[in-house]
């Protein structure tokens, strides 16, 4: 950890020699505030924005470090954007930086969300508000259907038609007909993926996991 921090220090010093702590935290906040407010379509689509701020704008990391961090974030479950914000915030400004960057990414939009939805539900009994709520349902359905197709075609790219369709049918069986909690299904798949021997890896990059 220490060596990593030292490796980072020169880049910060080079850019701005007498950067005080509050300034650094201010920059962190502003960088991730922009990421949160400008990233549409969820966390993964805001990764290019994080890259722009962190690598190009503030130069907290170079391209390789950023790539490593992204790969690292992908080894763990959960939202991507907050993991990136938290980790980069931690590297730049310690625990305060971590909390600062995560807060800047998520709090502004949560505020908007609560304000808009609670004001919408105060007028819930109005007929035109009911109409608005109703019209939005099929539109979200379309967005989900598009997302469904994206997930399936990405699976198809890695597993092939046969593998993907077998897993799709097995998932439908388990979740819809046997009533197994989707979390259990996913957990079993994660374990299976983890303990499976790396057959192809042996040829390409031998000894990597051994």
């Amino acid at each position: 950890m220490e060596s990593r921090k030292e490796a980072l220090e020169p880049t910060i010093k080079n850019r701005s020699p007498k950067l005080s702590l509050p300034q650094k935290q201010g920059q962190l906040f502003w960088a991730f505030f922009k990421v949160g407010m400008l990233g549409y379509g969820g966390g993964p689509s805001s990764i290019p924005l994080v890259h722009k701020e962190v690598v190009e704008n503030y130069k907290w990391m170079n391209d390789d470090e950023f790539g490593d961090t992204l790969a690292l974030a992908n080894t763990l479950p959960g939202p991507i954007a907050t993991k990136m914000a938290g980790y980069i915030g931690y590297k730049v400004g310690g625990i305060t930086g971590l909390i600062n960057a995560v807060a800047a990414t998520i709090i502004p939009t949560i505020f908007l969300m609560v304000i808009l939805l609670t004001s919408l539900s105060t007028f819930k009994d109005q007929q035109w508000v009911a109409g608005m709520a109703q019209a939005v349902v099929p539109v979200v359905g379309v967005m989900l259907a598009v997302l469904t197709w994206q997930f399936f075609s990405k699976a198809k790219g890695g597993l092939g038609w046969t593998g993907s369709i077998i897993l799709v049918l097995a998932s439908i069986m388990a979740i819809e007909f046997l009533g197994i909690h989707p979390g259990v299904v996913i957990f079993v798949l994660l374990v299976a993926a983890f303990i499976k021997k790396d057959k192809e890896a042996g040829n390409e990059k031998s000894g990597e996991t051994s």
Partner: protein
Amino acid sequence: MIYWQIFLAFFIPGILGYGGGPASIPLVENEVVDRFGWMNVNEFSEVLAMGNALPGPIATKMAGYIGFEQGGVLGAIVGVFATVAPSLILMVVLLGILYKFKDSPKVKRMTLFIRPTIAVLLGVMAYEFFKSSYEGAGLLQTAFLIVASYLLLERFKVHPAFVIMGALGYGAVFLGGII
């Protein structure tokens, strides 16, 4: 204990949603609608619509709002914490170990293996939304909204926020009894 329930409802999707926030949407729906019954499919779709119309990460917006609905400000904090903290803490703490697995084919395979399941969950949600719209707004309106929003989003690449705003306006006028 509502805070414990909120924690569980967002901890499970957070820890199982491999591949970022959108993968955890159907898992959140499973907890919030099916398990705890805090909202029905329609209400969930409103939250999701608003989440899609606003910028920023999806999972934390949903956790923040649903947590707030159920348990006020503290509920929102619990929901967001349960979504964000476990994986973030692991990332900072397990840095060294994770570094070894970073380029391991296992990691790619884990994301890959659960994709078909996530696709099924998302597909089921889409079906539920279409069904609920058919029951509420009728076949003609539902079909029109599906075709129109699909063309706008995918063919003409209109920003989702505008499509949702358009749908809200359309609904207020044509489904809300103004005409």
